[in-house]
């Protein structure tokens, strides 16, 4: 009993203290909101993928996935139940319409890794005792053996990482789209680009709104730089009838920020077509001018100069229909449908890629690496350790995920954790009760039902990956 209190208190207090550091740094103005927003982008596009790779890959194997299919399924079931409960809470608390998604998600997506790991680490002894009293024997080398805390913990860790895989995939695909409404302008309230708006009032706002409206397949606001050219391909291949409107781009750039009519909007999109989608967030990826733009004057083409460096082939395809022109006003687009089939295929592929965020890709890659025994062996299990530099580097980056996340959390909370006007006390309480007391009860019910249906997987093999020397040697 004391063990459990100690474990959960330690985990929660650790989080509170680290968040408090973030708040303190924010008070000391060492960290501010734009910085924390930028750190979040760094986390999502680099640090979290590193963490996922080193944690999922060594714990993955076909055997685990097939035998323990219940883990992902259970997580999905809990999420669905959470979504239903979230809707009930939102209705009960009578929140604003734009808060519905927030409440639903706060109720449905639980902490899948850090807290469970902390808990099972301190409960390993209890679990091993349970195994022995209940008659569960893990099999090692074909023989049933007595369960030990170490064995139990190693199995538990593998279970948690199987869950993490599914959690990552749902979080960075479905949730990512669902939480932030498509027409939300991320820089509007007090974002990092607030200053940018001041510096460059005309085009920024205009373009952003337009892209958010027209962006249907690529609703994700944050784009990996590889995904960015999607817009260009899209526009060149599909919107040929709009090409004539290219002529007057420079003027359109200087339009005021008032909501534009669709005609203007189309023009600006085409302007984007040869440039970048307005992904307001990825300034770090912004790179110097491309060939087509060198002849243009900076003030009018300020946006065009922010092309991301994409791969060269795409860039060439983009620019061939748009030859560099001496003066901006005489741009004459000659997009031809000759390459349209390959273009369309490319567009389809890019749209698909566009729908998935970097962490979800990382999860997929780690599963694939984990499921190929030789790759897993070479990367993580080989005693020679040729790739230790690689995995160690990724581990080091991955280790920074928790502190970084908690610092940004602290910054968001620096003004004191008071329920705001949007999020009343009543809503907060209801979310708390649902997430922490209602859904666990459902968890017990779910497991009870599974037991009745005899659907719980049996411990029929050792879950811990044994180095599979045979496979490597046979290569």
């Amino acid at each position, binding site marked *: 009993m004391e063990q*459990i209190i100690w*474990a959960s*208190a330690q985990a*929660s207090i650790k989080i509170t203290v680290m968040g408090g550091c973030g708040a303190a740094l924010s008070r000391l103005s060492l960290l501010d*909101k734009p910085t*924390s927003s930028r750190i979040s982008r760094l986390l*999502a596009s680099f640090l979290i993928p590193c963490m996922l790779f080193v944690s999922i890959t060594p714990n993955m194997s076909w055997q685990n996935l097939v035998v323990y299919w*219940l883990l992902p399924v*259970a997580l999905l079931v809990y999420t669905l139940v959470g979504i239903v409960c979230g809707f009930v809470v939102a209705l009960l608390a009578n929140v604003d319409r734009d808060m519905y998604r*927030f409440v639903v*998600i*706060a109720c449905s*997506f*639980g*902490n*899948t890794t850090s*807290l*469970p790991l902390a808990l*099972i680490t301190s409960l390993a002894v209890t679990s091993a005792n*349970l195994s022995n*009293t*209940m*008659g*569960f024997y893990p099999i090692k080398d*074909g*023989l049933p053996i007595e369960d030990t805390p170490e064995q139990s913990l190693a*199995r*538990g860790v593998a279970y948690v990482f199987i*869950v993490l895989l599914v959690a990552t995939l749902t979080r960075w695909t479905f*949730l990512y789209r669902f939480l*932030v*409404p498509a027409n*939300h302008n991320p820089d509007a*309230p007090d974002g990092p680009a607030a200053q940018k708006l001041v510096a460059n009032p005309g085009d920024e706002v205009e373009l952003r709104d337009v892209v958010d409206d027209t962006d249907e397949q690529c609703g994700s606001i*944050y784009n990996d730089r590889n995904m960015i050219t999607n817009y260009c391909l899209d526009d060149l291949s599909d919107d040929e009838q709009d090409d004539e409107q290219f002529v007057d781009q420079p003027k359109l750039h200087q339009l005021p920020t008032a909501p534009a009519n669709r005609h203007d909007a189309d023009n600006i999109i085409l302007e984007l077509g040869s440039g970048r989608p307005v992904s307001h967030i990825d300034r770090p990826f912004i790179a110097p001018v491309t060939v087509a733009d060198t002849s243009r004057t900076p003030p009018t083409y300020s946006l065009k100069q922010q092309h991301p460096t994409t791969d060269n082939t795409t860039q060439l395809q983009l620019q061939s229909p748009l030859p560099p022109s001496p003066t901006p006003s005489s741009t004459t687009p000659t997009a031809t449908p000759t390459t349209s089939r390959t273009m369309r295929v490319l567009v389809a592929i890019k749209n698909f890629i566009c729908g998935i965020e970097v962490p979800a890709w990382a999860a997929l890659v780690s599963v694939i690496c984990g499921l190929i025994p030789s790759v897993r062996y070479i990367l993580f299990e080989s005693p020679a350790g040729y790739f230790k530099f690689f995995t160690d580097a990724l581990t080091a980056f991955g280790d920074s995920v928790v502190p970084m*996340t908690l610092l*940004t*959390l602290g*910054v*968001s909370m620096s*003004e004191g*954790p*008071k*329920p*705001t006007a*949007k*999020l009343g006390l009543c809503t907060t309480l209801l*979310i708390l009760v649902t997430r*922490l*007391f209602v*859904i*666990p009860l*459902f*968890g*017990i019910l779910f*497991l009870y039902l599974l037991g009745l249906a005899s659907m*719980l997987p*049996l*411990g*029929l093999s050792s879950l811990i990956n044994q180095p599979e020397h045979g496979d490597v040697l046979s290569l």
Partner: protein
Amino acid sequence: VNGLFLTDLSVVCMHTDPMLRLVLLVQSATPTAINLSVITTMHNYLAKEMATVLFYQYLLAIVSLTINVSLFLYAIPLL
């Protein structure tokens, strides 16, 4: 839940791993993921609200997890 499995040497009676049940149950009892704060901060969308909800959840989790996990450990042999 019992099953029979033929190993190299003998027929062994097996149960579901209690650790598996524990992990399944703990997954349902954890507070909201901190990752959500990354997403909200990234978009500047309800970041403060998310932080507030997370703060109270992790504070209350000290109590709720203790209660829930005790309940789970009590329930695991019975399920």
